[in-house]
């Protein structure tokens, strides 16, 4: 049974419990919204995953599964469900957790949380229906003046407003925690990272509103078409900054999982926190790297914004890329895993899916994602990479192998700790992060190299058959597309395994109320 004594904090009777594993307080209202948002996230992940395998098998020329119209439709569906719905539903869940449990406070407003959740859910459903009806084949970027049905934009706007309200609830939690002095001094590091993500989210969503509201009015015939160049500038104001939200949320998840899995402590809190501040300060203008080969923005503007702002944000990632594994190393050595240079790493709990997902995420994001990102963001290299498959090759290492994998690792703790249900088929759980990680690395490498042969992204036919002029790509490009296809199958199996294991655990898993979760 749940312990009856109220945990420390500002909770009202019957509205909180003490976590049987970590001893932290859990606000029961917040817990409900963590559950609701996490469930929606996994549903979106499933929709996106079905899209993923269809796309992977279409871009693999030897298979070329979907017809052209469905390829473009599913591409829109996959991008939006993965990048927006899966990731943001889960991030809002993280904010409910960080804003209440870590700050030992109750949820600021249940009404606001309901409004936020319903808006997001209705928005997501509306957008998905519009896409599947075939009236919004415009890709997630919906670059004007290519036009979708107005419900597509309306759905996105509702979703964004809902997310903004969720972020507002987080700020309100921080405020009442300070007012009620539920914690003294500075907030925990993970909450600080979440705060950084929340601040960037506000700026991002404002850009999104300026881009999408006029576009929506235009689709209703109430306004002239937005200017194509301005649309791109504003759209990337949300498109790029949301990636920084993802990075903040992912890095916070790394710190959290490092603590939960090996008991790691940050070495120097000032360093970790300053790195989060760098993200907040320098990321917005770096979105210029999406416009490196655009007309209408000058070379000086491109160089200035993509070098000064981007590299200081990169610096932040370089710092976390050091402090996170260093914290793990110190914790491991303290436990006596002290042999040689890498004994601590060899002896790490690789069979704990929370740990393996976290550490693979760190490696994939840091090495593949980071290196490709910095390379693509230079002016000259962007000329040979813009809109080729090198771009999805890059972000399947950052937001998929990085953020999504870290979030999966998080779920291996969220389900036992918040849903209070245990995962079954534990051997399969232990295998899952590797399956997905290896698969997505192959996808990323295959896409990146195919792209360097010039193979475009968002393109149904690399043979151009039926076009007025045609010349296929080098056979090397086909090998790389095949590699991507094989990776896609592996990653899909890994992803589906995760979804099935998680859905099973949430609804049918063994309850663990009243005792600590079964250690991984």
């Amino acid at each position: 049974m749940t312990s009856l004594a109220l945990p420390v904090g500002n909770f009202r009777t019957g509205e909180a419990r003490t976590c049987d594993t970590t001893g932290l307080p859990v606000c029961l209202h917040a817990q409900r919204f963590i559950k609701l948002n996490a469930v929606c996230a996994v549903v979106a992940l499933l929709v996106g995953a079905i899209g993923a395998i269809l796309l992977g098998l279409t871009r693999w020329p030897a298979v070329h599964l979907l017809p052209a119209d469905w390829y473009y439709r599913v591409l829109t569906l996959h991008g939006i469900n993965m990048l927006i719905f899966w990731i943001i539903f889960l991030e809002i869940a993280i904010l409910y957790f960080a804003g209440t449990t870590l700050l030992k406070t109750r949820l600021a407003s249940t009404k606001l949380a309901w409004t936020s959740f319903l808006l997001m859910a209705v928005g997501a459903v509306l957008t998905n229906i519009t896409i599947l009806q075939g009236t919004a084949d415009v890709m997630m970027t919906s670059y004007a003046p290519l036009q979708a049905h107005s419900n597509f934009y309306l759905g996105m706007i509702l979703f964004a407003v809902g997310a903004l309200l969720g972020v507002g609830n987080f700020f309100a939690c921080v405020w009442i925690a300070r007012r009620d002095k539920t914690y003294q001094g500075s907030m925990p590091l993970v909450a600080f990272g979440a705060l950084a993500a929340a601040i960037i989210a506000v700026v991002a969503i404002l850009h999104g509103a300026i881009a999408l509201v006029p576009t929506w009015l235009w689709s209703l015939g109430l306004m002239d078409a937005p200017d194509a160049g301005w649309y791109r500038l504003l759209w990337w104001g949300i498109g790029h900054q949301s990636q920084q939200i993802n990075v903040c949320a992912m890095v916070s998840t790394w710190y959290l999982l490092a603590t939960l899995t090996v008991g790691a402590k940050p070495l120097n809190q000032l360093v970790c926190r300053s790195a989060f501040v760098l993200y907040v300060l320098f990321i917005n203008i770096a979105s210029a790297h999406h416009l490196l080969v655009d007309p209408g923005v000058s070379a000086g503007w491109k160089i200035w914004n993509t070098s000064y702002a981007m590299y200081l944000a990169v610096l932040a990632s370089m710092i976390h890329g050091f402090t996170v594994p260093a914290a793990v190393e110190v914790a491991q050595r303290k436990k006596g895993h002290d042999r040689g240079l890498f004994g601590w790493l060899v002896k790490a709990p690789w069979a704990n899916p929370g740990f393996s997902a976290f550490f693979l995420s760190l490696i994939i994001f840091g090495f593949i994602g980071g290196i490709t990102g910095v390379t693509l963001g230079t002016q000259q290299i962007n000329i040979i990479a813009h809109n080729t498959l090198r771009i999805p090759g890059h972000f399947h290492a950052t937001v998929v192998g990085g953020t999504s994998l870290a979030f999966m690792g998080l779920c291996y703790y969220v389900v036992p700790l918040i849903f209070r249900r245990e995962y079954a088929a534990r051997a399969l759980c232990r295998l899952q992060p590797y399956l997905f990680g290896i698969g997505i690395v192959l996808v990323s490498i295959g896409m990146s190299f195919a792209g360097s042969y010039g193979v475009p992204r968002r393109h149904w036919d690399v043979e151009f058959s039926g076009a007025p002029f045609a010349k296929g790509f080098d056979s090397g490009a086909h090998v790389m597309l095949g590699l991507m296809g094989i990776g896609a199958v592996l990653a899909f199996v890994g992803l589906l395994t995760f979804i099935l294991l998680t859905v099973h655990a949430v609804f049918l898993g063994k309850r663990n109320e009243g005792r600590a979760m079964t250690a991984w």
Partner: protein
Amino acid sequence: MSIHQPPDDWFQAPHGPERVWIGLALAWCLILFLMMPYWHFRGKQNSTGEAYRTTPAEFAERVNRFIDANKVGEENGVPLVEPAPGSDIYLAAQMWRWYPALKLKKDQTYRLHVSSLDVQHGFSLQPMNMNFQILPGYDHVLTVTPTQSGDYLIICNEFCGINHHLMTGRIRVEG
């Protein structure tokens, strides 16, 4: 612990390997910061973003005038034009064609004006693999000097509707 409040004295300068790493990372970032403008002046291929305001109707008219003045034939149903070296040359992107086909002289410099007559498109020259964004309303000017003769393919790499993958064009360079 990252999930608990930090000790009161957390505000401390880094030391040891952490400090060294931050120094190295910062130095590396500063080097990259200088590389970017350096390559702009040193490198031979830049996207300067040179562009002028236009409208699809006005641009279409300029393209048609350009074709009328320089047409030398037709290729796969697309007019083939051979403009004077050094001149301003035009290419229209339209669902779903690149129009007209261009015949250029090796080692001559041209000012290539590209714009869209409808939605956004992606100018992608193959197999050179050079890519530029093409927007309606923007006359995007690329200063080009072909240095190798041969037939080049222009593909579209910005999604522009259902037949996007059929949108191809031609640049022929003769020596």
